[in-house]
């Protein structure tokens, strides 16, 4: 097992640069998720770690070794692809044993290692089948099995679950996590699904447009997003963003959204009158009756999910979402009041998007 570090890594295709100087360091045994919207350069970054794309500039280390000029097969990594990339003309066994065959390992060792991997993944019955005779989830497992038989230094995953249906995705998510607990192999996992990132990662790297926006543990990112992009990207439904300016009220600092409509902002050093964006997660908005404290809002629609209720409403001319554990059943146009839980508001600079 090994650490991985990326130093000012850049990538250009022709004249367009798609990765603009990325610094990430991944500790030995860590499970790191690269997450970001489509086209932000996650796969490109992963493929550079794998050695499938040339590094235009910067350095990549696996362990202590600079791998910029080292071929994929010598990097001691394994990769799981989105479409699994199982060799269609080989049985499951041969798929898993292929790398060992190429390396000239003995038949016995091949058998042992494949059997072990198959046992871990519950694939014992399928070893003689061809990929086309397997279900999506089983194929996914074979792809994982092919990676783990090699006992590599680093696992690389490129959206391995996106071809599965929702239920299977949740199940495989857990399985991959468990596998990691067990093998403790350094893993880099690419996804565009922030829930996957939140549930699986030790550390999340949020990317956007070829830049790293923020690196941190899932809950850090959730609670202390560094900027508007991360705040909006992590969490579902997304954080509410409300433009306004800072004021001081009797109950402390607040953001004025409209002439007589202010929401608590929590303590801040910024001066009154500064333009800010107030970010509040839906579950941090308290729904009160019409007579209670908070800002008045008009319900647009109520969506009960069973576990909780999402209430979408219009407040000071903007749409906001609130989530409550209680089973509210407001009719549209019902008037309610919303308030921010204490200490749960984030303030962002509207120009730079950075957190204040």
């Amino acid at each position, binding site marked *: 097992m090994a650490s991985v570090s990326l130093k000012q890594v850049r990538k250009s295709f022709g004249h367009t640069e798609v990765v603009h100087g990325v610094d990430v360091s991944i500790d030995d045994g860590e499970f790191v998720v690269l997450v970001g919207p489509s086209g932000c350069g996650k796969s490109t970054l992963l493929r550079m770690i794998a*050695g499938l794309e040339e590094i235009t500039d910067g350095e990549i280390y696996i362990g202590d070794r600079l791998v910029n000029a080292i071929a*994929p097969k010598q990097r001691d990594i394994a990769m799981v*692809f989105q479409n699994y990339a199982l*060799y269609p*003309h080989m049985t499951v066994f041969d798929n898993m044993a*292929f790398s060992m065959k*190429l390396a000239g390992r003995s038949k016995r060792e091949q058998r042992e290692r494949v059997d072990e991997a198959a046992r871990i993944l519950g694939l014992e019955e399928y070893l003689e089948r061809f990929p086309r005779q397997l279900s999506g989830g089983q194929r996914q497992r074979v792809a994982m099995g092919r990676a783990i038989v090699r006992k590599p230094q680093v696992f690389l995953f490129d959206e391995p679950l996106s071809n599965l249906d929702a239920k299977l995705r949740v199940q495989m998510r857990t399985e991959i996590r468990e596998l990691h607990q067990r093998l403790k192999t350094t893993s880099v996992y690419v996804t565009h699904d922030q829930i996957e990132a939140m549930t699986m990662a030790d550390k999340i790297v949020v990317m956007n447009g070829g830049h790293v926006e923020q690196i941190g543990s899932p809950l850090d990112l959730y609670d202390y997003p560094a900027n508007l992009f991360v705040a909006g990207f992590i969490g579902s439904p997304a954080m509410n963003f409300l433009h306004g300016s800072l004021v001081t009220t009797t109950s402390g600092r607040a953001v004025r959204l409209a002439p007589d409509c202010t929401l608590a902002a929590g303590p801040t050093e910024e001066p009154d009158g500064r333009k800010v964006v107030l970010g509040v997660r839906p579950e941090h908005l308290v729904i009160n009756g019409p007579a209670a404290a908070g800002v008045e809002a008009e319900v647009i629609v109520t969506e009960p999910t069973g576990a909780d209720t999402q209430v979408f409403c219009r407040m000071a001319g903007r749409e906001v979402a609130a989530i409550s554990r209680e089973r509210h059943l407001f009719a549209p146009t019902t008037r309610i009041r919303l308030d921010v839980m204490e200490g749960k508001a984030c303030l962002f600079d509207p120009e730079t998007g950075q957190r204040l």
Partner: protein
Amino acid sequence: MAEKEQREGMHYLESLPRRWVTVYIPLLLFLFVLLFPFYWMGLTAFKPDAELLSSGGNPFWVMEPTLEHFRKLFIDTSYPEWMWNTVIISVVSTFVSLAASVFAAYAIERLRFKGSRQLGLAIFLAYLVPPSILFIPLATMVFQLGMFDSRWALILTYPTFLIPFCTWLLMGYFRSIPFELEECALIDGATRWQILTRIVLPLAVPGLISAGIFAFTLSWNEFIYALTFISASENKTVPVGVITELVEGDVYHWGSLMAGALVGSLPVAVMYSFFVEYYVAGMTGAVKE
């Protein structure tokens, strides 16, 4: 080619007589015209000369079938040798072309080296160069290289039209193999050569069969080079031999000519019947780009 399950759809709206007029009768006419020459070829091959040259009777049937024409063909002419020449030349030039094409197609389509796109286009253009503008300069070359009247002349020149065709066809097949398979194999530790032999080629087997049988048919059918570069009777190929040797002056031995044409068509027809799907895939694949 995926044989799609054809839905009956709105066919129920069409009455049977209408279908006869718009579909079945035209189709039967087409089939009749397309197949009649073969019937005629076969019939003539078994007709004794007396029946052939008499103007009475029903020409569409044979009264006393005879194998005389075949006997004459195989005993009195060099037909067996022509057949053997054609087989050797077709098989060797097909294999040579296929081997060269596999490498070329893989390089152009998968290695993506500098200039591979231009080369791909050049291959396509080479495919469009017709033998009828090449045979004169090739004849002078063949002569200078001392290959005139030898099989080598044909084995070396047939690839000029086989390689572009096979390469173009195989490029299409290679393109359909996902890149990730090769990348995965790279990570698994395979060399380029191992990727080609253990991943790409096994997956391109249908393409190889298509290209192979198409190339074989093309070389079997080739005429102008064989007509130009070969002069001794025993070195000829079937198409050239039949047309140049079975016609003596103004006396046409129609029976033997037809027997020769029939026997000469059989190998490709038999191979075709086994591999129709591949053949059609090859033909339409080359056209569809």
